[in-house]
């Protein structure tokens, strides 16, 4: 479906969508308490795709779960389309309009506090990129999450080690990343972000009491398609030629 969207819209953040596929799959299959027919159900769990440019991965999952018709996928970015190049709240299942990086954790903080004040069991999951962790607002929010002991808030990092220009390690290194979140007061887990079984186990395990959670997912940008993997030039494609789309499909061996 991600490739259908790329094909239909002629553009998209390819690598950023492919690195989160398994994470989003496990969240919607096994973790999130949501109702596709009732997307604003108050007691639902919230999922914010803070790295909004990974939206093709989210759109595919929301369509698969029935939040909106699959036929919308191939229309993305076209005039009059439901789906744009970043998620917006007019799309059923999208909790926050993102695209500008560093906003999701702050909004998630407010949602997690609201759930606590309203005595709801809703949990809040925020998925950020690794490049996104360059934003100071993420760390401001991390301080506040820790202060309030928001155990109903889970930050998921798509740590694919690549950002737009190149390697995270070259542009703005994050290591030691787990230690940083621990120092900020988070309960931290690390997991292979493409290992569905391991992801299920991590999310099923109880978090650290009275601490917000950080799940660092080690991933591969452009996962599953050899020409995209680890390749910064596939961060975003604005003009996809038919032969490139064919190559993507061939790599996944889908029609």
């Amino acid at each position, binding site marked *: 479906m991600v490739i259908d969207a790329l094909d239909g819209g002629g553009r998209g953040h390819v690598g950023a969508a492919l690195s989160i596929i398994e994470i989003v799959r496990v969240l919607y299959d096994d973790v999130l308490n949501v109702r596709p027919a009732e997307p604003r159900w108050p007691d639902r769990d919230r999922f914010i795709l803070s790295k909004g440019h990974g939206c093709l991965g989210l759109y595919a999952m929301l369509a698969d779960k029935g939040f909106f018709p699959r036929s919308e996928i191939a229309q993305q970015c076209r005039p009059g389309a439901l789906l744009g190049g970043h998620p917006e709240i007019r799309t059923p299942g999208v*909790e*926050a309009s993102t695209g500008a990086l560093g*906003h999701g*954790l702050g*909004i998630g903080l*407010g949602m997690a506090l609201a759930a606590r004040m309203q005595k709801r069991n809703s949990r809040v999951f925020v998925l950020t990129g690794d490049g996104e962790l360059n934003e100071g607002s993420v760390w401001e*929010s991390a301080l*506040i999450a820790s*202060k309030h002991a928001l155990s109903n808030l889970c930050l998921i990092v798509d740590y694919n080690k690549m950002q737009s220009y190149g390697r995270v390690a070259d542009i703005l290194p994050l290591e030691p990343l787990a230690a940083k979140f621990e120092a900020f007061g988070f309960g931290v887990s690390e997991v292979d972000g493409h290992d569905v079984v391991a992801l299920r186990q991590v999310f099923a395990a109880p978090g650290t009491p009275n601490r917000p959670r950080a799940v660092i997912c080690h991933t591969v940008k452009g996962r599953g398609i050899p020409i995209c993997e680890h390749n910064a030039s596939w961060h975003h494609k604005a003009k996809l030629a038919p032969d490139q789309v064919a190559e993507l499909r061939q790599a996944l061996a889908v029609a």
Partner: protein
Amino acid sequence: MRDTSLRMVHELARRDPRVVFVGSDLGAGALDAMRREFPDRFYMEGVSEAAIIGLAAGLAMDGYIPYVNTIATFITRRCYEQVAVDLCLHNLPVRLIANGGGLVYAPLGPTHMAIEDLAIMRALPNMVVTAVADAEEMKRFMLATLDHPSPIYIRLGKGGDKVVTPADQVFTLGKAIELKPAKDLAFVATGVMASRALGAAALLAERGIEAGVLHVPTVKPLDDAAVLVLARRVPRLVTVEEHSRIGGLGSAVAELLIDNRLPTPLLRLALPDRFPEDYGSQEHLLEVAGLDPKGIAQSVLKP
């Protein structure tokens, strides 16, 4: 005016369980009474404006009405993208209470003087931009903020500002109020400049010029009808604002006149397009800019 505004947040919290207060790192003891009465709806989250705006957005998405308070420059410049995206794009009922609008923090220099806040807030879709004239109007205004569905920017004056609004004013967002009827010219003023415009009108009356004052507590949405009625009836309009001449009330009035093809002469009295270069007091800097009653009257009398 600031004390009144915060006291009203407390009062609104008593009336409505959706009201939440969010501060950054305010002066010790700020809104202590509310903190004691409603500890669960009182947040003081440190010098982290970007996160605080996001937090307020998240609270508003789940049914709360957050009143966020810090210094005007920090709540506008520092977290502009959060205000634009988290609040305005989602069109959430978050209120930004901005301490020290205009030149209030004169002794503290240009980092603390909000001279372009009205302009940058006005440029954002869905944002309501307000500057009331005095503490009494603040009380009436705060009641009107409770149920408004969109974000509201609330510019505060220094405090102790002269009360110029009538006690029987029914505050409606988007409505201007005539403080003095106009004949020869009409001042259109916002915030604490209403009192300076009244002072200038008194000086002009000594010279036989009958100047009226239209006070515009809501810069956006502007009360188009009230301004247009004046523009059609009075020979000359003079806008008065404690704000850069770019993008504030004067700009809003000029845009309105042009859009309605009205040739009414318009004089825009405002701060120059540069960062304040002096200290002293708000009054001193207003005088330097010609925005005290005498300076305003002199500008009007210039040929």
